[in-house]
Every structure is written in C-alpha cells, then in structure tokens.
C-alpha cells in the first residue's frame, strides 16, 4: 500500500521539469503533513469539548452532524464569517501579524518530526535545536498581540505570558539536554533509534524526572490549564487575545492546539520511543503474532504507535484542564525557577554519570561514542 503510493508519487514528480522537481517533492510532503495536522487540530477541539464534557457529567456538543462530529466545521464557518474588529488605537500591522507569528512556528516545527523510520520532512542533524528555536518564536506572537491590542487586559496577559514562557523555556531546555546526553545526538531520528529495543529502553525510565518536567513545562508553554494565566478566563477575561475576533482569533486557537499536538509528539519521540511499539522486543507477545499479515502490523512498531502516544499525552492535557484550579502568576514562576530548574540540573548530573558508567539497559551499547 505505502510502496504503491510512494512509487506513484515519485513517478508523478519525475514528470515535472528538473528545476521544479525538488520543490514539488517538498511541497507535496508539506501538504501531506499539514493537512492531517489541521484536521487533527479541528477534531482535537471537538475531542476536548466532548471529553471534558463527559468528565463533567454532561454530553458536550451533539447538534451538528452525527454525535456532534461536524461541530469543528460549524465553528470554522462561524469564525470565518465574523468580522475581525481592529481596535482603533491598536497598531494595525502588528495586530494582524501577531496571530501569524504564533501560528507559523507551531506548524514549522513539524518539519523535523520523524513519524516513522525515515519518514520526516527533513532529517537535519540539529533537529532538537531547531525545535527549541522555532517553538520559542511562538511567544513573540503572544507578546505582540497583547501589546498591539492597546488594551489593559491584553497587556497584562502579554506580560504574564512572556515571564512565564521565559522561565519554562529554561526548564524545558534542560530537560532536552538530558535527552541529548542520553542519546548522544541532536538528530530527532537518532534520538528515537537510540531507544530501540523494548519498553525498558525508552528514555522515560532513566530520565523520568526530566520526562515529567518536560511534559509539565510543555503544558505551561502552550498556556494550557492549570498554567493558563496568559488567558486567565476569570481574571483577565481572555488575556492577550481579548481584542481578537473572527479568523484572527481562530488562528490563535489553531496555534494553541497545534502546539499541544507538537508538545505531545515531542514528548512521545524523546521519552516514549517515538514510533516503537511497546509490545515489541519484550518477549511477551510471541513472534508468530508479529508475522501475521494485519495484526502483526498493528502490534509492530510503526506510525500508529506514535499516534497513540500523542493521543495519550493530549488526553492528559484535557484531563489536567478538567481537574486542576489555576495557578497564580507568581506561583508559576516559583514552580519553574525553584522546583523544575533544580530538578533538571540535578538529573542532568545523574544522567551524565549513568551514561559514563554505561548502566544497562539504556547506556550499555557504547554510550557516548
């Protein structure tokens, strides 16, 4: 199936003039990544409303389409036809540009995400650095949006957001340095391959504190509950996007959800062995099962496992939102600087020692080679 599509695609590109061939290849890959991503974002909004609905003993949207499945499209149409009100005292250029600055990095970071063995838009060596750099840009959109709106609530939201993201970026960066030490590579693909073997080889085990810090910082980075002070519904109304309406607002919304999926994907790749199946390599499931035509494919490593892992993290995002009260702005800072950063620094040392001592089963294959 995959091979057939691949050959058709290669043949189609070969028909184009030589100059256009690389462009066509890249653009088609981008479309293949982006379209499912946008659809996932759309249905994530529905999933959020449904799942939180069930957690809160209600049913969530069920009017549009069967069981509310078409709700995301109804929302999109509504937002598209709404007027984008630009406040008269705002800086119009920045006001309109801010949503794009937020959205573009959320999508651009997907360029280096490996979906399966050899399946990535670009398999660059500095993949981890690229992700860190790109995701940091997203916060500028939030700050600019808050500043350009020329509204007091938006301004407070922007201030909160910038302070919060600066502090959590550090904890997050340190957590990623742990992965870098463990895998000995900045290349996303190699990071996953370093976790090959079985569930026991996944970095979530030796780097468990970093895994936790990374995921919680990720929740904070995406401005999700309980760290959603930048939006802070009950305090500063909607924070940085209080003045936005229509599609301009929708783009912020899309960016938030795309970021959630991105953080989940990164967590899955760096700590839960990316596309590797948790069943493989343990000896629990017999080899004959893997040899079966379809069932074997389902149990074996592959893209679908990455998908499940992402879905698991997304569920955690929603679960947090339904469970926890919101932190106060200064309490978030305290958690970031006084708890997470010390934890990561200590565990970096521990990870370094573990790598040097070549502790099995994670670091015995040569460690830093």
């Amino acid at each position, binding site marked *: 199936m995959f091979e057939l599509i691949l050959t058709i695609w290669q043949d189609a590109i070969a028909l184009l003039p030589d100059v256009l061939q690389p462009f066509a290849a890249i653009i088609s890959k981008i479309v293949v990544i982006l379209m499912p991503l946008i659809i996932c974002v759309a249905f994530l909004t529905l999933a959020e409303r449904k799942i939180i609905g069930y957690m809160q003993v209600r049913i969530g949207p069920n009017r549009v389409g069967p069981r509310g499945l078409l709700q995301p499209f109804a929302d999109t149409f509504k937002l598209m036809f709404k007027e984008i009100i630009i406040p008269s005292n705002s800086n119009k250029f920045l006001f309109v540009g801010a949503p794009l600055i937020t959205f573009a990095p959320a999508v651009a970071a997907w360029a280096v995400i490996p979906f399966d063995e050899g399946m990535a838009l670009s398999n660059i060596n500095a993949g981890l650095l690229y992700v860190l750099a790109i995701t940091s840009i997203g916060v500028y959109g939030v700050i600019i949006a808050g500043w350009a709106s020329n509204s007091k609530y938006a301004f407070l939201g922007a201030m909160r957001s910038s302070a919060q993201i600066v502090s959590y970026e550090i904890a997050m960066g340190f957590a990623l340095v742990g992965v870098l030490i463990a895998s000995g590579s900045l290349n996303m693909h190699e990071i996953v391959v370093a976790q090959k073997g079985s569930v026991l080889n996944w970095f979530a085990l030796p780097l468990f504190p970093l895994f936790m810090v990374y995921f919680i910082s990720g929740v904070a980075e995406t401005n999700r509950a309980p760290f959603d002070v930048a939006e802070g519904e*009950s305090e500063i109304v909607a924070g940085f996007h209080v003045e936005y309406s229509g599609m301009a607002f929708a783009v912020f919304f899309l960016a938030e959800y795309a970021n959630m999926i991105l953080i989940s994907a990164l967590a899955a790749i760096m700590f839960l062995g990316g596309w590797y199946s948790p069943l493989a390599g343990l000896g629990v499931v017999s080899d004959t099962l893997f040899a079966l035509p379809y069932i074997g494919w389902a149990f074996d490593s592959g893209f679908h496992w990455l998908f499940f892992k992402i879905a698991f993290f997304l569920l955690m995002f929603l679960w947090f939102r*339904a469970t*926890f009260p*919101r932190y*106060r702005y200064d309490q978030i800072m305290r958690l970031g600087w006084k708890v997470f950063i010390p934890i990561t620094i200590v565990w970096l040392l521990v990870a370094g020692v573990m790598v040097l001592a070549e502790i099995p089963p994670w670091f015995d294959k040569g460690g830093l080679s």
Partner: protein
Amino acid sequence: MAEIRNYTMNFGPQHPAAHGVLRLVLEMDGEVVERADPHVGLLHRGTEKLAETKPFNQSIGYMDRLDYVSMMCNEHAYVMAIEKLLGIEVPRRAQYIRVMFDEITRILNHLMWLGTHGLDIGAMTMFLYCFREREDLMDCYEAVSGTRMHATYYRPGGVYRDLPGTMPQYEVSKWHKKKDVDRMNEARQGSLLDFIEDFTRRFPKMVDEYETLLTDNRIWKQRTVGIGVVSPERAQQLGFSGPMLRGSGVEWDIRKKQPYAVYDELFFDIPVGVTGDCYDRYLVRMEELRQSNHIIKQCVEWLRNNPGPVITQDHKVAPPKRLDMKGDMEALIHHFKLFTEGYCVPEGEVYASVEAPKGEFGVYLVSDGANKPYRVKMRAPGFAHISAMDEMVRGHMLADVVAVIGTMDIVFGEIDR
C-alpha cells in the same frame, strides 16, 4: 525620568468573575493591587420602595429576588417581621417546613458559591458537579411551590401549602431514553419527604467528592491559604456575618444565639475558622453543607411523624380554603378582603433577622397601621462584605481579587436591592 504612575483597571461590570454586575476600579502596581474601589448600584431595582407601595403580603415575591440564590431565607425574614407585628402564632409543622427549606436553601446557596468560587480560581469541573446536586434541590422547590427559584412559598402565618405526596417525574423524550428516565425517577417514586430523605443520604458522599477535588489540592491551597485575611476583631468592626465572620473565628450564628423558628430543638454544630483566610472560609462552608444536611434529616424525621396544619387558621391573615368559599359567606368575604385590601398591621416597628446562607439577613419594618408598610429596610449581609473589598485585597495580586470576590459569596440582587 518618567513619572511612574499606577495602572488603573476597570474590573467589570462585564467580567466573567464579577458575579453579576460588580464594578471594581483597581489601582494596580503591575500585578499587585494598591487600591480596590467597588462600585455598586448597577442592579438597583428599588425593592424597598416598591414594598412600601403594596399590601404586606404582595411583597414576598420581591424578597426572593433580592438574594436570588437563597430565596426562601429572605422570605423567612420578611414574613417573620410581619408575624411579629401581627402577633400571630405559626403552626409547628409550618415552622419545621420553614427550617427544612431554609437549610435546603443553604445547601443551594453554598453549592452555588462552591461552583463559582471554583470556577473563579480555575477549577471549572466543580461548577458542573455542584449544579448536578442543585438540580435535585430545585426540584424540591418546584414540588412545593411550582417554581424552581422564586418560590413565594412562605406566607405570614405559615407556608402556602403542605408538602406534596408525589414528586414530578422525568418523561421519556428524544434526549432521554426509557432506561435513563427510569434511573432518574428512581428516587422520585414516593413523596417529597422520601425524595429529600434520599437526597440527604446521597449528599454527604457528594461533599466528600468535592473535597477530594479541592481540600487537599496543592494548587487550591496555594490560591486560598493566606488570601484575604480578616482578623476576628476587624471582622466584627466591619459588620461581617455568616461564614465570613465564622471563618475569622468568631462563633456567631443567629440560629444558635437568637434561635428563631424551631432551631432550638434541632442538633447541629456551627463550624468556626482559625486564621480568617479564604481557605478557612471554604472549610467553614463545606462543613455547613454537612450540618445543613444533618438538620434536614431531623426535620424530615419530625415532619413524617407530625401531621397538622401548615398555616394559621386566622383568616384575616391567611386565605380560607377554596372549598369553604363556595358555601360560606364569611370565607368569601375574607378571601375578597385579603386579595384586594390585604390586612392592616398594627402600628409599630420591628426587626426580624435570619441566618441566611450569606450571613445575617434582616428586615426592618415600620408600620403606621395601614395595609402597606410605612418603611421597609433590608439588611443585606453582602453589602457589609463588599465594603471590606479594599481592605481584603490590598497588597494581593489580581488573581487574588477574583478569589476574594468568590469567598465573599457576593450576589448583587441583595447588595443593590
């Protein structure tokens, strides 16, 4: 060097945490509140003046609309004031029914408070859980009075009618299948008292459920411990009452100190806080939920065993039976007089107060002997609480303002009147 000025922020009246129409003008140094100036009056409907233009018994409905989440408690204060002036005796069964519904109202109010307080602090699931239980209590309101909120159930001399023998049932519809409806109607097969008793059995488990979500939650504690501290002396000076006063450690509850209705015959405790912060007030109110449940249980027990009249037989004050009117001339005249002129109340002035869920709700009534009050003044607990807003939030952060508004349990219906 540029002059450094404070940031003035307009918080409300259209704000998700404004609990109606609170307008706060906040003077802020960054995120820290330097001064909070609450503006009231946006929900002023002139209830006191309206009550002066109508016969005594026609203003009961206005009382529901004062504090629109503790309806029957407001009615209770008003009818108690009239009863004191008239000097009429209220049947014991009516007293018990009133106490039972006062406590149901307290649970309703505290659930509303818990939900919105949670929502303000960001625990949005609390809100929906609380409303699940509120629904059952609203059904009790509906069963006795026909409406879910503005009951007008208490009347001078008793209550409008006796407790019904059946509960309204859910019906099968496009949204509710037969199986679901059967499950929802399970507790509704018997009388209202059966339903309330079933509720009192279920409710403590629900409170436990709320407490697992909040009481030991680190974030909840960080957000409420040490926020909006009021010392016991200061709380008394500011005229606090109810859980706001008890949260500061002052043991004051009108139900215990100046018992009205039949509170002196019932067993219950009044919880008291220690430090007087938002967390203590939260704990006090959570315990009050349990205590109210306990009181309701006792009332149900008494009401089961003691049938009797629920309204005074003095037909100058309470309307006669519909059936009597058909054959009895005097009953017809009473009915006509009551629903046109009302009744004249002896000259004098009176103050009657109840322990409403939010604190001391009092009605001060002056009568000049006519069929309308000369002057009605309500003492709303929320008004005293909101006056302390500046003192409670000064030096705290913006997010704490929201927590303090939540802990005050503000409803603008009673503050603006």
